[in-house]
């Protein structure tokens, strides 16, 4: 199983459903992911506002969130909220890398991020 699929399955169902809807996963990843998702998760793609989406990303798996940002799955509002919510958390390596990616995305820069 691909790493990103494993992470998507472990994430909260509404987040995975939202990311699926927004088209973050490629066809092969989708083929792996869909049979493993619970019915509830695949049906949960209802209304999810910008703050809730940003919260799910901030409090969830940092690598999943990083991929969502790098693949431009977030709007301006959502990025701003994600940036804000990350500041509430205690600093650690993963959080700092994600914050760096978000800051770069807010400045319109994407791509590989290297801090060292």
């Amino acid at each position: 199983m691909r790493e990103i699929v494993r992470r998507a399955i472990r994430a909260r169902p509404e987040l995975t459903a939202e990311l699926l809807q927004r088209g973050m996963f490629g066809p092969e990843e989708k083929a792996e992911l869909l049979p493993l998702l619970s019915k509830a998760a695949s049906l949960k793609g209802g209304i999810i506002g910008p703050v809730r989406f940003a919260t799910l990303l901030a409090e969830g798996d940092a690598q999943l969130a990083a991929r969502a940002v790098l693949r431009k799955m977030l709007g301006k509002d959502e990025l701003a909220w994600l940036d804000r919510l990350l500041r509430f958390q205690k600093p650690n390596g993963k959080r700092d890398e994600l914050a760096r990616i978000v800051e770069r995305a807010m400045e319109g820069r994407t791509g590989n991020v290297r801090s060292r």
Partner: protein
Amino acid sequence: MSAVAEVQAPGKVLINSVVKNLTALAARAFAKRWIITFTAPTGVGKTTAIGYMDQSLAFEHLVIPAKQITTRYTMLKAMGLAPGEKWSNHGRNWMRASDLYERVVERVRERPPLLIVDESDRLRMDCLDMLRDLWDDVRLPMLLVGNEILTEKINASHERLSRRIRVRFDHRPLREAELRKCLEFMGYEVADDEFALLWKLVGGSPGFAEALLENANEIAASQGVKRGIEALEGAVKYFPTVRK
């Protein structure tokens, strides 16, 4: 004057203890050419207060919001170049940090501004070292604003900078009445049971309370109802770190 467009003064700001204390410290740092640190928990309203100060301070000042991507070079650029200014020097289209540093020193000698660094707990070691150099060379007055980590960071790894700090102001979280007033000012109608839960979870942090309330608003809206205690409790589930 803001060095980066991102720092904007909010239209209306509640003049609470954070704003008053920060403004008073800024004036003192500028007048005496001191280094002052202001620390307070996350979400208390430091950035909002700085946005307000940026518009209202009557003396020369420069606000730099520190980020994860802030480097010595980006700080010097913000201090040494006018907004939008590009630099070319003898065929080079960029400057070394040392060139920029000299330019900043010259500028400060002519007209020293107060340097306000928001979220300075996020500054890298070399950036903090550079700030110490600037104070040693030209007595650049500065107000370093951040959360509790700032004090720990400076004490642990920047003894020389630490010795040059004249005032260390540690602001407490807002009190219950202040938080309620702040939320009302922000336009939230919060019922007593909601407020009790918020206070228990986030203490005196209107920023964190706002994040919870906005989540609760979205949950309630998705169910087509008005926000209530159930929606707020639902929102708390999205913050596993708060629940602990």
